[in-house]
């Protein structure tokens, strides 16, 4: 097949990828979108398979690689629990990063395959592009590994900081820049691998000072990096599909990082400098209750109140994910609806630990997505609700974000649950959430605390409703 025709097919693949992301603008079109993505990938792979000059042993290796990689991927995708999604995504990014490194290495060793020169005599342009792809890919690889380890709990979530950390990183960065220049000048294999190792080290060092709870932002940022790495390789091998896709992925990661930072009212710099937040909300300093009064309640009380309400809004948070309480929650909502109570769900943009975290979990429990509303859509409705059932959420309801300019979450938009007649808070203790800020709402007269595991408590409420 002529090079032009192949390029045309890559372009078609890229357009299919754009349509795939476009499909995600609505749940109804999203499945078709994912199919478009798959078709795009199929087009790209097939176009490459029929490329002129492919040799038999190559075909063998390719089929083998796809078979091995594909089955691993398929098994993982089928087995993984929805709650482990953040670490899965991190792990996948590290693979893309590593793949970019190896493609760069292959291109350096067999430049003729990509028409970018002969071994040892690559075009300068190609060497520049290659080293960009290599460095970003390597950083993505090691950074994502740390993110994965912290999210999976293999590594402690605490920020790891030491003297002269920033200086060390700066030195490494400068060394990397010098090496890249040397590499472009010489095209030497040895320098290539030194760059790879240095970038891997830099990736480790950049991510270890960031707390476990900030990992979602980091994962998303690394997603963006993996896109730019793909672009670098795309420019090297002059491949339309890679360039366009890289830009899409780069934009996607950058935008999601921005959305998260905005939702937390922090700057990306603040996140990357690290040291904020530890492993999970629960571990943060328990608030000193002092002598202020807190109204306790049990499942019976909660059931009674909700049964007599005409409108209940559910606000899920990270605790629901921890307790895997979404199925029990759906059951509770069903029971209430049978009793004629209107039930809606309100999702804060950064509820949980990943963008769209709560939506996926609720969807898993078969909650129809037209009962689930975003902050702007539902914030005015709290004043018309009789009961708000806050399950494992904390920061996203904290009025300090509006009232206390000294609070670290000041300026973050919140769900105004206190406008409702009664607020039920399901959590295990008086501990603060991810941001480590005490929640004023716990002490309000219209708040009732339901201490306990979110799943257990909700199941008990269902039982009490059934009586």
């Amino acid at each position, binding site marked *: 097949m002529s090079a032009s025709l192949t390029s045309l097919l890559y372009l078609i693949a890229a357009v299919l990828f754009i349509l795939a992301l476009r499909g995600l603008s609505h749940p109804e079109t999203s499945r078709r979108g994912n199919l478009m993505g798959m078709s795009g990938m199929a087009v790209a792979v097939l176009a490459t398979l029929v490329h002129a000059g492919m040799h038999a042993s190559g075909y063998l290796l390719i089929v083998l690689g796809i078979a091995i990689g594909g089955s691993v991927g398929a098994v993982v995708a089928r087995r993984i629990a929805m709650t482990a999604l953040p670490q899965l995504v991190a792990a996948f990014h590290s693979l893309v990063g590593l793949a970019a490194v*190896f493609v760069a290495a292959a291109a350096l060793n067999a430049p003729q395959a990509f028409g970018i020169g002969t071994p040892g005599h690559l075009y300068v342009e190609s060497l520049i592009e290659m080293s960009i792809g290599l460095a970003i890919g390597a950083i993505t690889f090691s950074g994502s590994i740390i993110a994965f380890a912290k999210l999976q709990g293999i590594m402690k979530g605490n920020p790891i900081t030491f003297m002269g950390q920033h200086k060390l990183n700066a030195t490494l960065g400068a060394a990397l820049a010098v090496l890249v220049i040397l590499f472009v000048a010489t095209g030497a294999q040895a320098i290539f691998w030194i760059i790879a190792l240095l970038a891997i080290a830099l990736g480790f060092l950049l991510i270890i000072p960031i707390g476990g709870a900030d990992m979602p932002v980091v994962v998303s940022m690394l997603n963006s990096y993996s896109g730019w790495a793909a672009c670098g390789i795309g420019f090297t091998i002059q491949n339309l599909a890679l360039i366009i896709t890289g830009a899409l992925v780069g934009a996607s990661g950058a935008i999601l990082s921005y*959305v998260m930072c905005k939702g937390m009212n922090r700057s990306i710099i603040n996140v990357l400098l690290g040291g904020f937040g530890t492993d999970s909300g629960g571990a943060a300093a328990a608030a000193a209750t002092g002598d202020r009064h807190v109204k306790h309640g049990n499942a019976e009380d909660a059931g009674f109140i909700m049964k007599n309400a005409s409108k209940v809004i559910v606000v899920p948070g990270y605790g629901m994910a921890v307790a895997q309480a979404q199925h029990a929650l759906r059951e509770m909502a069903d029971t209430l609806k049978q009793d004629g109570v209107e039930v809606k769900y309100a999702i804060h943009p950064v509820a949980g630990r990943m963008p769209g975290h709560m939506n996926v979990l609720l969807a898993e429990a078969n909650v129809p997505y037209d009962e689930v509303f975003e902050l702007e859509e539902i914030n005015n409705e709290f004043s018309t609700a009789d009961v708000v059932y806050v399950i494992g959420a904390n920061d996203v309801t904290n009025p300090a974000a509006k009232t206390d300019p000294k609070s670290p979450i000041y300026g973050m938009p919140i769900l105004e649950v206190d406008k409702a007649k009664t607020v039920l808070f399901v959590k295990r203790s008086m501990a603060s959430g991810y941001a480590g800020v005490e929640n004023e709402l716990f002490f309000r007269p219209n708040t009732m605390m339901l201490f306990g595991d979110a799943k257990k408590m909700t199941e008990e409420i269902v039982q009490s409703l059934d009586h």
Partner: protein
Amino acid sequence: MNPNQLADQAHALATQADALAAKLHALGTAAAPAAAAVNPFVFLLAIFLMACFVGYYVVWNVTPALHSPLMAVTNGISSVIIVGAMLATGLATSHWAMAFGFIAVTLASVNIFGGFLVTQRMLAMFKKKEK
């Protein structure tokens, strides 16, 4: 063979070579009219810039409820880097290059299948109210 004949032949050869050179040059330009003078890098840069704009808009239009599937699907599509890996594996004669290519093919394949299938699993869960 007499000298004149030889000279003639040599001349013919030279003209032939000349014609070949001209043809080669024409080949380069015929396929690519005005753009032949433009470094393709400029075109690739243009494609890249436009794709950045497209990415910006298309991702902003993704509904926040689907941000998790978005992360998974971008995982899948970013594995299009497999194209580079396949070319290296299939076209290279260097054993090193083939080995690197094979590793990259395998890694990218994990992502392709993993990314799209996880997305499919997630999206299958998003349902409308049954009426």
